[in-house]
């Protein structure tokens, strides 16, 4: 007879809200008439993510003492809750962005087919976020792998969903193949760790390692390495980043925005928890490993971004280098590092999302991929989006225009506090290099007159006249800007949240 564990449904309420909305969205794809499908599914998606945020906030308030639920499969604590809030907020913003931009906005002329797959898109988006919300709370290697696959499969579909878009299918396929490689690594690593310790729960692994004195066991170390590599794939950290620029470029831009913000949050926050709880005895191994990955990401991300002309690719490399910064916080492996990582997530997610959203707006206007050349004049034509992009880029570059500035200081302090002055220098030099391409975007937007722009007129959509009115996109960008800039000023409240969240890891 199968033994059924007691289930704390409330601990799973975020995931359930998202999954429920996803189910309703899928039903809508069949039952709701085509005309009403887009508004219907967008509203369902918006409500689902709002419900997710409410549930996660509630969980945060109600779970001061973290513990595992469902017989040790899932964490109910503030780390999980805060990560879920971030993921759901990104999802909500993606919903706003997607209403006008996905899928099938290229088929606007063909109203019949335009809304073919819109409901499925939102349903998959919700399911994907649900997977991430589950992933960040995973408490054993089984749920970890399960939820990783869950949201990854959803992401593969999302990348490939806009079949009219050149490169979308390719992006989906590439992500599927390379992503599976990462998943396989993670699975194999989990198996090795299980083989060494005989347990899959994070807590039990640490206990077993301590009890049996396995901290230099070859199987265990190999397993750990493979797990780190698997998580590296998901957080697109170098040297596991090869898929990132291609997939980010090929995927529909709203999906890119969602991926770059939410996936990274999920993967890095989970990595921090997994390392601290399951492998505390191996801390001197994984701190060095993550420091190495951080340095590689900073180097490769920044240097490769220097030569990009395509803005999506450029931002993809920039996200690799930002991952490098966040990994500095992770590699410190201290409470301060955890706090720094958690804080960094908030402005990073907002900034990354916002910048891709602006690229989406320009892309729609032009009907072709956005490059540094055809950004010319954009800042003057669309003042709000221009200013927002300006703030995002300067923020990423480490100027005090957004919370990323404070985040960088935090991770550098964490690194120095850990005794790694050299990592501080690496971070500083990386920031310096990154200036060139971040300022390059500002330069392209403001300092070149648009007359120089060799426009091939919008191939499908916009022909002449003013750019499309994208109220919802403006709302999404405005929210991202508010969070990004606001987090520069409201550091203390965010840090308090992060401290409470991080306290459940120690």
């Amino acid at each position, binding site marked *: 007879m199968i033994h059924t564990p007691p289930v704390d449904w409330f601990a799973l309420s975020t995931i359930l809200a998202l999954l429920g909305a996803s189910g309703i969205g899928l039903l809508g794809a069949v039952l709701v008439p085509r005309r009403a499908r887009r508004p219907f599914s967008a509203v369902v998606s918006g409500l689902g993510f709002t419900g997710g945020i409410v549930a996660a906030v509630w969980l945060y308030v109600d779970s001061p003492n973290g513990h595992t639920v469902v017989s040790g499969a899932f964490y109910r604590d503030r780390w999980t809750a805060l990560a879920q809030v971030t993921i759901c907020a990104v999802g909500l913003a993606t919903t706003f962005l997607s209403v006008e931009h996905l899928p099938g906005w290229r088929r606007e002329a063909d109203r019949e087919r335009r809304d073919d797959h819109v409901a499925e898109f939102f349903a998959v988006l919700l399911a994907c976020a649900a997977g991430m919300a589950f992933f960040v709370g995973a408490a054993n290697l089984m749920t970890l792998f399960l939820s990783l696959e869950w949201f990854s499969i959803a992401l593969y579909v999302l990348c490939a969903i806009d079949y009219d878009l050149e490169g979308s299918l390719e992006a989906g396929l590439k992500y599927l193949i390379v992503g599976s490689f990462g998943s396989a690594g993670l699975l194999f690593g989990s198996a090795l760790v299980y083989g060494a310790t005989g347990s899959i729960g994070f807590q039990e692994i640490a206990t077993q390692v301590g009890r049996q004195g396995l901290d230099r066991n070859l199987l265990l170390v190999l397993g750990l390495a493979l797990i780190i590599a698997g998580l590296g794939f998901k957080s697109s950290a170098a040297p596991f980043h090869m898929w990132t620029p291609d997939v980010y470029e090929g995927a529909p831009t709203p999906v890119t925005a969602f991926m770059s913000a939410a996936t990274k949050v999920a993967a890095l926050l989970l990595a921090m928890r997994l390392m601290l709880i399951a492998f505390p005895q191996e801390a001197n191994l994984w701190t060095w490993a993550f420091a190495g990955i951080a340095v590689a990401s900073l180097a490769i991300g920044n240097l490769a971004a220097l030569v990009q002309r395509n803005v999506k690719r450029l931002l993809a490399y920039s996200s690799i280098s930002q991952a490098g910064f966040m990994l500095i916080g992770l590699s410190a492996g201290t409470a301060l590092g955890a706090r720094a990582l958690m804080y960094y997530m908030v402005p990073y997610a907002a900034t990354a999302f916002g910048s891709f959203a602006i690229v989406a707006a320009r892309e729609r206007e032009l009907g072709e991929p956005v490059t540094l050349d055809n950004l010319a004049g954009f800042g*003057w034509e669309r003042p709000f989006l221009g200013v927002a992009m300006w703030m995002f880029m300067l923020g990423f570059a480490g100027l005090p225009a957004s919370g990323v500035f404070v985040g960088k*200081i935090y991770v550098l302090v964490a690194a*120095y506090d850990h005794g790694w*002055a050299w990592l501080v220098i690496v971070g500083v030099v990386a*920031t310096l290099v990154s200036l060139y391409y971040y300022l390059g975007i500002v330069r392209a937007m403001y300092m070149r007159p648009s007359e120089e722009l060799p426009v091939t007129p919008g191939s499908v959509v916009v022909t002449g006249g003013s750019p499309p009115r994208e109220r919802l996109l403006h709302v999404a960008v405005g929210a991202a800007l508010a969070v990004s800039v606001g987090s520069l000023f409201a550091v203390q409240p965010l840090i308090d949240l992060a401290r409470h969240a991080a306290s459940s890891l120690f």
Partner: protein
Amino acid sequence: MAMSTVTSVLIWLPIGAAILIWMLPLSRYATGSLALLVSLLEVGFWIEQAARFDFSQSGLQFSDRAPWFGDLHVFYHVGEYGFSLWLVGLTTVVMAACVGYGFWVGRDRPRAYFGLMLFLTGATVGVFVAQDLLLFYAFFEAMLIPLYILIGVWGGPGRLGATLKFVIYTMTGSLLMLAAIVVYGVQAGTFDLVDGPTSASRWLFLGFMLAFVIKSPLFPFHGWLPDAYGESPPEVTAVLSGVIAKAGLYGMLRIAIPTFPEPASYYRTAILALASASLVYGSLLAFRSPGFRGVVAYSSLAQSGLIALGLFSGTNLGFDGAVLQMVAHGLVSASLFLIAGAVERRTTTGEFRLLGGMARGRPALATLLMTVGVISLAVPGSAAFAGEFLILAGAYQRAWWWAVIGATGIVLAAMYMLRLISAVLHEARGSTVSDEALDLRPGELALVVPLVGVLLALSVWPAAISGHSFAGDNPTSVVQEQFK
């Protein structure tokens, strides 16, 4: 220590106004008027504050403090000392004149332009009043945000290269300073400048100094200067050399010297040598420069060297003179660049071989340029003379040869400034100077005359600044006690 919001108002009023200007769809005229009004209001606030300032008291005044990120002990902590009061005053006055200039020449895209100028005002005031290292760093970097756009959008044909060079140079310095700040802050357990302990680390000192010598700039870190000063719109150049450059020198005075007393004296000779090299080399370049702006730009390099000479002489006279000279030179170079702008508008060029004979029929231009030029070459009785004299006296107390080098610089200053005056005003009429080129208009006079007026007032009473910068007029002990 009573809390006061006056200082915060000086920072956030212009930044708030900038955001307002960006959001309100006002006309060109209304935008410019609003910006000018706000910058005059800023001057008014400063005068009110200066009137209430207690110069006899050491320690921070008009301070304000609130936690920013508490677990790293980082505070929003602002306040003023005597010398920072004067630098804030310099900032508000010069910025007001430059905003007025932008209004007068009718810059394109007025909302963006005036918003950025006001934002720059707030950020620069922030640099001079911040009493927390990370806050200081934030403002120090924030100055770069508007400057980058101001030069890159409204600058001359070579603006893209100029901005890139400018940003890369200054960020190299300031990011290393960031590393130094992080290390210092973690070691000291606080980022506060007032409570912070001294440090004997030479590496940290060098990290800070690199940022400051690039910003000032001093030889050989001035590579960005000719491009940035040459390609910016004239009023932005005026801000750059009049105010922004002073931020670097201020950093030496407020942070590098008091917080790192041992390294500062260890590297004293090296820095004095750099300062002297800047003074002489800058003066020579100014003498060789083929155009109006080039002369003023390289003379700024020379003056930065002179001021650094005063600061690192480590004597009472040197400190007093340095503060006076910062203000005097700020006003001089702002006036000169605004006049350069006026000349360029009339003749389309600043090149000496195309200029000449502008004095004839243009008495206001001639009088003003002559007055500022004469003050700038430190004619006895002028504010700049007082400043340079104090600096040289201070340098002499350190060792006589520094004073000799400094005096050489002053002779060279007379040479390049007289060359400038004669090349623009006198000699044969230049090919680009037409009879239709008007004298300075009332609008321009209203901007330059007040600056010159302040300079003349300071010439009459230089002790207003040199005697009111450090409590008890004993700078070395105040600096040694880290402005406690």
